[in-house]
């Protein structure tokens, strides 16, 4: 998908990453036989390291390869797999392939949006959930399908959505309980 993503190239994105992460990316770029034609490969690696490809990381890659930042941004914004914003703790992907669509995925998406108060490709305020609509994860036999962090829920009904969300909310609460109160 080629939806423009909000990114300000003039302002830093306000988040500093440890130098080790940049070192890892640099080592990867240097290990390549040639950087000719390797930009997408490098960006895949960058997203793997940082979780998303921030403005700073894009500029870092551009300088490393000796190409304009605009060229890097052009590629990042072209491909839907690359994201320029950090994701929430859990990523909810509602399949919007045609098979799921005719079996009611539209209602599922609407219901998630309403319950979480966010649109697609946004993150909830508490940073717990990011919602994405994906195009077919290939489990059409289970349509409509929702995937949360790689776990697939098949034949989902609108009534199931609270249960699905609660699984992750509960996990979070349990985790919070385990931290000694002094450390909170």
């Amino acid at each position, binding site marked *: 998908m*080629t939806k423009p993503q909000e990114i300000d190239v003039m302002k830093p994105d306000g988040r500093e990453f440890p130098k080790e992460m940049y070192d890892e990316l640099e080592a990867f770029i240097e290990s390549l036989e040639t950087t000719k034609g390797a930009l*997408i*490969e490098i*960006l895949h690696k960058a997203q793997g390291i940082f979780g998303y490809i921030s403005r700073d990381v894009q500029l870092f890659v551009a300088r490393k390869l000796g190409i304009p930042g605009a060229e890097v941004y052009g590629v990042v914004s072209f491909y*839907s797999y*690359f994201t320029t914003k950090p994701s929430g703790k859990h990523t909810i992907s509602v399949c919007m392939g045609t098979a799921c669509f005719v079996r009611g995925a539209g209602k599922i998406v609407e219901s998630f949006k309403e319950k979480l108060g966010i649109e697609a490709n946004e993150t909830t305020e508490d940073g717990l959930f990011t919602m994405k609509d994906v195009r077919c994860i290939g489990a*059409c*036999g289970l349509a409509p399908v929702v995937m949360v962090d790689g776990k697939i829920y098949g034949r989902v009904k609108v009534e199931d959505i609270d249960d699905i969300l609660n699984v992750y909310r509960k996990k979070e609460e349990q985790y919070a309980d385990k931290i000694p109160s002094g450390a909170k």
Partner: protein
Amino acid sequence: MQIRSLAELNKLKQEASGQIMIRQHRETTETNKNILVCGGTGCLASDSDKVVKNLETILKARGLTEQVKVIRTGCFGFCEQGPIVKIEPDNVFYVRVGPKDAKDIIDEHIVKGNRVQRLLYEDPQTKEKVHTQEEMAFYKKQLRVALRNCGLINPEDIYEYIAVGGYEALGKALTQMSRNEVIDTVKKSGLRGRGGGGFPTGLKWEITSKQQEEEKFIICNADEGDPGAFMDRSILEGDPHSVIEAMAIGAYAIGADKGIVYIRAEYPLAISRLTTALQQARESGLLGQGIFGTSFNFDVKLKYGAGAFVCGEETALINSCEGKRGEPNYKPPYPAEEGYWGHPTCVNNVETFANIPVIMIRGAEWFASMGTEKSKGTKVFALAGKINNVGLVEVPMGITLREIIFDIGGGIPHGKKFKAVQTGGPSGGVITEENLDTPIDYDGLLALGTMMGSGRMIVMDEDDNMVNIAKFYLEFTMDEACGRCGPGRIGTKRLFEMLSKITSGKATMADLDAIKQLAYMVKDSSLCGLCQTAPNPVLSTMKHFWNEYLDFVKDVDHPQGEGKFVPKNKIGMKS
């Protein structure tokens, strides 16, 4: 071990064939059993890996690990009933097997020889239990050529592929055939590109082979972006070696020594199986320098896509391989003349490649004996939507849609009425009841205003509103249009907006008129296939379901159910 000649390959085949013969129900001295568990993405999503784990644990506890092997295969195709487990040589097919069923499969079936009744497939019509794959309506009319090894072999074991005759075609081509003979065989077979366009594969190879350049490339297009199509993924997951072998044959034919598989990053399982297969092929000397003791060198690299539907278009794909935005180029020059970094490049689809090794072994005549006059062989379709048997089916060309939907697909669930079937994805159109008996081939579908595309079929029932379906597709192409050409970038957006206006009930007859005009404009003037075909879902639904468009339009007095309409105002005049 390194394989240096056909004789060595045959020796390995003999050694490895015992296990496979069990599964092919041929006479064998083996008394062992194989439990085949589907390891495709669909079945994995419903816990087939836990089934494997439980089976192995129980086998170990019963001390049966020597006699009974659990094999994780590729996709059986019957995704609706997954996870699938098949017991060989008993030829028993179990469906919807959960991790807890592992105990009964072993204690009842394997140990005592009793079939586990509750796991057998029940024919929805006769309500009888069906024991074997061959007796199931879903498989009866299928003919598995491209999917021949999916659900039969372990895709992560090169010896199983060799046992079913793998790499023989490559050996034969390299040691017994000239480049022209290979091209001639493919040409005579009548194989056409399975990615959607239907360009004759042999001709593409011939054009590329004639280019006078030192360096050439062969690329496998595994960027299956059509939502709901998963045949390429299933082949890569279930039989990756067949694609590698075919790429090597193609490279030999066109005179290339480097290959690229351009694969979606969203397919982690296919990537991992392909990587394993490449590694094994290198270790066996089937990729690398001097393959089969000849002077032919070949190796394959993977390039990952990053989520862009337009990258299925070959020039866009090549741009993406070069690390750029995946925008298409003007053609000519065609990739066969000027492709990857300016070198002659041949781009073929996964399913096209999967057909090549069998054509080389069984001959062009055999392949050409299947199908219709202009479309030979078989085609894999991904059947989904409002249909009982969702899954992957492979049928000979020329079969009718009625046979696919009602015989193989088992008809429409919940006793609803069939309304239409959408083929060709976002580039295709709908086919209604009256045309269900048309034989399916490339040209037949084009004549119906739709296309073969990658082979996806979405079935819709009486509850589906066709305007919404058209809008759904337009939203997809609008998102995926790359922005290179005006008609694609702006036209698809305007079309989507107009369709939204219709579904929100604010449109007038003038809007319908404008949509039609714009649709034809986008079709005629877009740069590449993606946007040239983008208006098809709109035009096709308008043709067949005009009344549903009228239902949304406010200035029409549309008598429900009579199928006639009386416009209040003349077309083009606002109320």
